[in-house]
C-alpha cells in the first residue's frame, strides 16, 4: 500500500511552525472573507430568495437612491439660484464661531469636499455582520495623516434632519489609523444604518478632507435582508453624450451596484446603465425596444449586450424626464471603452469619481 508521508503527518502538531510571519498580510480582507463565510453558513438555513428578486430590489434601491440625490441637488440648486434660501445666512446664524465653519457639511459642499483633491478616499470593501459594519478604505494623496476621524451618519439623518447644515464639531468620531504600507485603513462601525456617509476629517489640519458614501442592507431581525450591498470603489463612469444626439438624452452612467453581499456567491459586479433625461419639454418616447439594445464595447475589442431592465418617468415641477435602466452581469466596468445606444457610439470620458 502506498502512503504519502505528507498525509501521514497530518496527525502531527508541529509547534511552532518555523515560518517568517508576514507582516503585510491583509487582515481586513481575511476578516471580511471569514465573516462572509459565517454569514453564508447562516443564510443557507434561511428562506431562499430568488436571485432575480434580490437583483430587482438592488436595482430599485440604486435607482431610487440616484433619483433622490439628483432631486435633492437640483432642488437645492434651484432654491439657491432663485434666492428663496440664502445658505450663507443660514450657516452664519447657526455657527457663530468661525472655527466651526470647516466642519459644516451641506448639500452643496458634499461634492466639493469629495472632490477637493486633498486626499483620494476610495472604498475598497464593506461588509455587515451581526452587529457591526466593517469597512476598508484606501487613502491616497499627498501628506496622508497618521489617522483620520470619521463622522458617520445615515442617509435619513442627512436627508430629513440636518441636510442643509451638518455640524461635525460635537460628534464622536470613529478614529482609524492608516497603514502607511498599504495606504489602507479599516473601520468598524457599530451603528445600524442603511446608507452611511462618512465625513473624513484630517485631525492635523483640522478640516474635512473627504466624503465616503456606502450602502449596507443589514438587519438581524430580517434574515433575508442580512446582506450588504456596497457601492465599490470609483463606481460611476461617465460617458460623453452629445446634447443634440437625442433630444431627450443627456447622461449615461454605468454604476457598479455589486459588491459584497452576505452570501459568498454574489461576487460578480452588476452594472446598470442609467439614461437620464433632464429636459424641460418632456413628451418624449424612450427607444427601449429590442432593436435599441445597449452594447458595451470593451477595451479588448469584444462586445457585451446589456438587457433592458426597466423604465421610469419623472414628473415634477423641477424636472421632467425619466431613466432607462439596462443591466448586465459584468465584472469590470473600467474595461468598457464605449457604449452604443440607438446606433450611436458614446465614448467614455476619462475620469471617474465617487458620488451619486
Amino acid at each position: 500500500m502506498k502512503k504519502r508521508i505528507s498525509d501521514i503527518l497530518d496527525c502531527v502538531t508541529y509547534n511552532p511552525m518555523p515560518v517568517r510571519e508576514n507582516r503585510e498580510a491583509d487582515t481586513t480582507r481575511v476578516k471580511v472573507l471569514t465573516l462572509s463565510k459565517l454569514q453564508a453558513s447562516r443564510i443557507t438555513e434561511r428562506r431562499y430568495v430568488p436571485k432575480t428578486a434580490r437583483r430587482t430590489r438592488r436595482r430599485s434601491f440604486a435607482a431610487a437612491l440616484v433619483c433622490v440625490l439628483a432631486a435633492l441637488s437640483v432642488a437645492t440648486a434651484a432654491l439657491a439660484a432663485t434666492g428663496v434660501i440664502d445658505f450663507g445666512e443660514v450657516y452664519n446664524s447657526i455657527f457663530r464661531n468661525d472655527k466651526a465653519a470647516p466642519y459644516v457639511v451641506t448639500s452643496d459642499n458634499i461634492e466639493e469636499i469629495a472632490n477637493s483633491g486633498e486626499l483620494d478616499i476610495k472604498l475598497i470593501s464593506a461588509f455587515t455582520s451581526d452587529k457591526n459594519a466593517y469597512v476598508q478604505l484606501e487613502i491616497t494623496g499627498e501628506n496622508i495623516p497618521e489617522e483620520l476621524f470619521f463622522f458617520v451618519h445615515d442617509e435619513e439623518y442627512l436627508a430629513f434632519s440636518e441636510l442643509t447644515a451638518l455640524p461635525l464639531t460635537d460628534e464622536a468620531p470613529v478614529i482609524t489609523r492608516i497603514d502607511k504600507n498599504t495606504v489602507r485603513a479599516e473601520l468598524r462601525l457599530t451603528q445600524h444604518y442603511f446608507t452611511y456617509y462618512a465625513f473624513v476629517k484630517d485631525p492635523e489640519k483640522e478640516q474635512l478632507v473627504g466624503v465616503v458614501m456606502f450602502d449596507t442592507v443589514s438587519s438581524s431581525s430580517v434574515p433575508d435582508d442580512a446582506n450588504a450591498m456596497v457601492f465599490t470603489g470609483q463606481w460611476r463612469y461617465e460617458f460623453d453624450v452629445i446634447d443634440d444626439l437625442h433630444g431627450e438624452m443627456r447622461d449615461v452612467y454605468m454604476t457598479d451596484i455589486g459588491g459584497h453581499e452576505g452570501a459568498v456567491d454574489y461576487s460578480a459586479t452588476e452594472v446598470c446603465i442609467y439614461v437620464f433625461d433632464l429636459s424641460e419639454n418632456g413628451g418624449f418616447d424612450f427607444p427601449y425596444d429590442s432593436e435599441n439594445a445597449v452594447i458595451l464595447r470593451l477595451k479588448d475589442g469584444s462586445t457585451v449586450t446589456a438587457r433592458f431592465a426597466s423604465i421610469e418617468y419623472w414628473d415634477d415641477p423641477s424636472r421632467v424626464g425619466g431613466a432607462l435602466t439596462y443591466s448586465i452581469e459584468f465584472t469590470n466596468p473600467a474595461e468598457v471603452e464605449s457604449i452604443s445606444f440607438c446606433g450611436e457610439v458614446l465614448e467614455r470620458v476619462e475620469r471617474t469619481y465617487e458620488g451619486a
Partner: protein
Amino acid sequence: MIDIFALKAILRGDEDALVKLIDKYNAYVCAVVRGIIGGIAEDVEEVAADVFFALWNNADKPDPQKLKAYLGGIARNKAKNKLRERVDDLPLEEDCILIEQSSPETNLIAGDETAAVKTALLAMREPDREIFLRHYYGLQTVAAIAGEIKMSEAAVKQRLTRGREKLKINLIGEETDREETNFRHFGLRNV
C-alpha cells in the same frame, strides 16, 4: 484578549472575539499558508479565511494554551489541499512510501499509525527531525530548507532519506504488530 476567553466567547457566538483572534494570528496563519502555496495574496487570504472559519466551527477543540499550534496545523492542512487542487504531486522528495498491506482490517486502526509516526519522529535526532518536518509537514522545498538552516541541499536530502527510513521502519513494524494482533483477535496465528 486572552485566547481562552476568546474561544469561550466564540462558543457563545461572539464574532468580535473571532475578529480579535484574526488580528492576533493572521500574520502567522498567512505565513504558514504562503510558505506552502506561494505568494498569490488572494489565495493566501482565502485559505486563511477557511482556517478561521474552521476555528469558529471547532472552537471547543483547541487547547487554549496551544492555539497557535492548532491554527498552524489547520493552515498547513488546508494549504496542502489547496496546493493539491493545482498540482497532482506535491514538490516533495519521494513523498510516497510503500507499506505492505496484508488485510483490510489494518486500515481501520488509525490510532496506531499516529503513535508510530510520533515514535518515528521522536527517534530522529536534530536537525534531522526539523528538516523532516519542515519538508513533509511544512512542505518547504529542499532548497528553501538548505538556505534557511545553512546546509547544502545534498546534506538535507541525506537527512530526509534517513528520516524516511526511520518512519518506514516504525510503520512497518507497527503494521506487523497489528497483523499479529488481528490474527490473535480472529483466533489465527501468523505463519
